[in-house]
Structures are given as structure tokens and as C-alpha cells.
């Protein structure tokens, strides 16, 4: 791997901002393509306190197959819960780069957010922090783990239909 192509802090931060923009634009196939083959999207039920996804349940814990299922369903004309469709807005704080290890090919970021999901007359607000673990694959950054720690993860929620 040539050092010229290794990501710097700005590129890592830009990656996170661009990811949010794809989500909020509803460009979900392009968003899915950001995930590594073994990538996971994880919304733990205990928020930031949760250690793993095996001993405790999660609001969502999905591999690429499940994420593609979710995205396929949103396109289905009989996804009745999407009539009218949901739209989302992420408002991100500047991502903090927690970890850069070029040798191990591990990059970690922490990004506090506010998230709104609107559908018809209803709007749901959530807040918390994203925790990304990224890897460089063929010169492209890929998501190994996208962890979404909701502030009120354990509370009772109304339906969350897109991707906080």
C-alpha cells in the first residue's frame, strides 16, 4: 500500500459527512456500497453502555444481507408504512478521529448527531453518537462497523423506519 493513498484526518471526517448526506438524500444503494463485505450496522439497545451484540439485544444489528433486505423493502410498492414515505435529516457535530492505525488498517471516529425522521404530519427526534470503524480496501474507505449509540436507546420508541 503506497503511503500517498493513506487517508488523513480530513478524508476520514469527510467520509462520515458524505455518508450522512447519502442517507438523507435517500441514496441507499450507494450508502450500502460503503460497507465492507463483513460490515455491520448496529443500534445497541443499551446505547453507549453496551459491550456486545451477542449477550444483549439490539434495536438493529445488521449485516450487508439484512441491510439490503431493508433497502429492497423500502423500494417495494407494498411497503405500506412508507405511504407516505419517511425522510431523514442528520445534523452532525464535527467528527472526532479517535484512532488512526495505518499498519493495522483501522480508523475510528466518533460523531455526535441529532436525527429527525419525518413522515406525513409526524416527526421523530433522536440523538446520540455515531461510532465508525473504517478500513481501506482497494484505496476506498469501507465501513467495518457503524455503531449508532442512541441517548435514549432503552426507552420505548415509535417506529424508526430509516437509518438513525
Amino acid at each position, binding site marked *: 500500500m503506497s503511503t500517498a493513498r493513506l487517508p488523513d484526518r480530513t478524508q476520514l471526517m469527510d467520509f462520515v459527512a458524505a455518508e450522512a448526506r447519502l442517507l438523507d438524500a435517500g441514496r441507499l444503494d450507494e450508502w450500502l456500497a460503503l460497507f465492507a463485505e463483513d460490515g455491520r450496522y448496529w*443500534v445497541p*439497545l*443499551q446505547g453507549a453502555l453496551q459491550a456486545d451484540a*451477542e*449477550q*444483549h*439485544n*439490539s*434495536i*438493529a*444489528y445488521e*449485516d450487508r*444481507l*439484512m441491510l*439490503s*433486505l*431493508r433497502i*429492497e*423493502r423500502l423500494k*417495494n410498492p*407494498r*411497503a*405500506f*408504512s412508507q*405511504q407516505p414515505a419517511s425522510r431523514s435529516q442528520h445534523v452532525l457535530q464535527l467528527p472526532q478521529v479517535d484512532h488512526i492505525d495505518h499498519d493495522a488498517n483501522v480508523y475510528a471516529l466518533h460523531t455526535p448527531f441529532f436525527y429527525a425522521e419525518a413522515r406525513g404530519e409526524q416527526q421523530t427526534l433522536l440523538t446520540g453518537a455515531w461510532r465508525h470503524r473504517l478500513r481501506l480496501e482497494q484505496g476506498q474507505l469501507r465501513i467495518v462497523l457503524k455503531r449508532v449509540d442512541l441517548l435514549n436507546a*432503552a*426507552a*420505548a*420508541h*415509535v*417506529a*424508526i*423506519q430509516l437509518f438513525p
Partner: protein
Amino acid sequence: MIERSFVNFPSQAGASGMRFKREQATAISALVEPDRVHRDVYLSQELFALEQQHFFGNTWNFVAHASQLPKPGDYVTLDFAGRPLLVVRQADGSIRVLYNRCAHKGSKLTSEACGNAGKFLRCPYHAWTFKLDGAPLAVPLRSGYEGTGLAQCESGRGMTALRHVEVYRGFVFVKLNDAGPGFQEYFGEALQSIDNMVDRSPSGELQVAGGVLRNIIHCNWKMYLENINDTVHPVSTHESAVQAAESVWKGQPADSPKPMAIEQILPFGAGYDFFDRMGGRVYAGGHSLLGVNFSIHSGYALPPDYEAALVAAHGEARTREVLERSPQNAVLFPSLSVKGSPLAIRVIRPLAADRTLVEAWSFRAVGAPELLFERALSYNRLVFSPMSVVAHDDVHLFETIQQGLRSPGNEWVSLHRGFDPAEIGQGTLTTNGTNELLMRNQFRAWAHYMTLDMKELAQ
């Protein structure tokens, strides 16, 4: 919008009060006809208030699991039918349920969801203390109460303990009112669904684990409960989730092992015939078993050695009985729905006429392979999480029903499918899986328990 009134004058004593109670009971009973129900059962705020007082007072409801309270002093709190409850493990190992209200001014003794109280309960406001069974222990400045009536009144007697509490194989149930039958009579054979779940552990012990997924749905609780027994909706309601699952799994070799999520979602696409043949059963009092013959859960493979461990513990015959029955849903009317395989339950908590809390709990069966726990977590996450792609369409429909029912022109909801006048007044009945008898049976029990103490008061 809702013209009918059920509480249009304040409760009255004496002969006119008795007549009112009788008239109220008659008006409520008239909402449930043999083959349909009036929309007011879902829409009326007044009926909801009466449900809190009468229906949820006269019925037995699940409040906690013993495994949440392993040690003396361990407690969980919950809000049940508008009452704050404190479920607490006693020094002698028994479980008591108290109203979470200080005998003095009414503060909650604790506002945590769970914890350990130590040897006694202490109010944060004026430091009144109570034994774990609610009995009064001490108050500061006791001399100030000398010569007063405190000791003789309710406030001097400590925290109020519920009189009707039953722990059945670890499942803690309460009945708030004195009216209504005892626990065994109330549930009868329907308790077999709990036995089926508990006996999936070689040592007959379940543990709540992995957290509780909690959902707010803007619909009446009865809509959710009915849908647990609705076998005709998956084909149309869940079409998008099933088609998406089929589409992403398409192209895989027929013998390639399915990931757990695919294994759990694809069966939702089973056709009308499958759901009809699975069979349903009703028990007196609103309880039911859906999937008498088989269900969408029947296809889960048994982990190696598990069957042998069960046979060693329970014997061949009982093991076969347990494993051959994986009901779609068993309803312990009105607030608990049990699966068995997966080891998952749903708890339905009404919050308002148009707002319901639905909780999905997962269990470990002690001594059973971890795979069973993984299946419980996975199923609850896929199907009962606020982010569930299966539930989104259900929730959307429940919420539109809550709105659509306000339409004029038809005040009734049809429950005609499979109706047979001979079914009325029967106890246990087994029928085809798409018969709406399971819902009619719920509403008949609803009218019964809703009016039970009104009739007693009127006598």
C-alpha cells in the same frame, strides 16, 4: 365524534348508583355482539378509563419474571393500568407486589426501573421506612404522632400490598381487584403454554436476558392483541418484507444454510392454506393457542444433544410433547403472548385509548444450548423492534385503523369469519387457523371482565 357515553354522571351511592352500574354494564355488554364489536371499544376515552378500573382490575396480568429478582431486596417497578407497582423479593424468598406509594405523602419509594432495596424500603421525602412486605418500620420524630390517629388509619398501616399475586413457574401475575376468579380457574389449560416454554429448559428454569425491546404504537391495545391471532393478514400486510427477503436470498443454492434472519423472516410468506391448517384453539376466558398443529416456528432445527438432555430431564413422552408444539402465539388474556420457540414473550401495556406499549422479552432456558437464546434475540429484533421491517407495516395499519374507525356510516368491526352460533358459551374449542373465533373469544371475555364488578356492585 363518539356520541355514546358510559360515565356521563359521577358515581353515585344508593339505589340510583346501583341502577347506574347495572345500566353501565348493559351498555358495555351491548358493544360486543356475537360476530362483531362496536368501534367504541377501540376509540372511547371513557371506556379506557373504565378498563383501567374494572377490566385491568378484574383480570390476571403478567408483571414480572422471578429471574429479575434473584436476591432478597431485588425489585422491579412498573406502571400497570395507571398504578405504580413495586415487585420485590422478600427475605424468605417469596415475591410480593406493593403499590409504589409511600404511606405518608404518596412519593414513589423508588423511581428506578430495577435495583436492590437492601433490607427495607426508605422514602426519599421524609425517611419513612417500610419492611420489604410494606409493613411500617419507622418514622422520624415519632413523638409528634403521639395521641394522633395515624396508627389507626391507612397511612399508619404501611404500604399497600396486592392481595392477589401468583408466581407460576417464574411468571409473576397480579389481580388488582377482589372480584374475579382465582389464578388457576382464571387461566386453566391456557397455562400449558407457559409449561411448554419452561420445559424447554432441562432444569425447568427460564431467565430473562438480553434486554426488553419496547415500542409505542398509536393504537388501542385490543387491536394489537387481536392481531396476535390474525392469520389472514401476513399474506398481504407483510408482502413487502417477504418479497425483499426472497429477493435478497434468490440465487442461493437450495441447500445453502440460511442465516437465522432469513430462516425467521421467510416463513411469514406462507400462504392462506398454511395458516388455516395450523389450527387454533380457544379456552374459556379469552385465552388462546394459535398453531395447534404447526406454525411458522416449526422449521427451526434442534441443536445437537438438546433433545437428549430434555429426555434425560423430562422423559421421552414429555419431551416429545414440548418439542412437537411450537405455537405461533399463545395468548394469556389480556396482556401476555407467549411463543415457546423462540423463547420470546410479548407484554401489552395500554397507555391510553389510542396508545399502547408493546414489550418483547427474550429468555434463556437454563441448561439448554445458547442457540435458543440467540434465536430469541434475533426473532425479537427482526419482528418486534422499533426498527423491525416486519412490524413497520403492522404498526402503520394499526395506526390507520385507529383513525379510519372514526368514519361515519359503519360503527361496527366485523369478526364474522367462521362464526357458528354454537360456539357461544363453549369452553375449550379447536378450530381452523383462520377462524376469527380466537378474536371473538377475546371480546366475549373483555365484556365479561369489564362488567364483572359492576354487576357485583349492582347486586
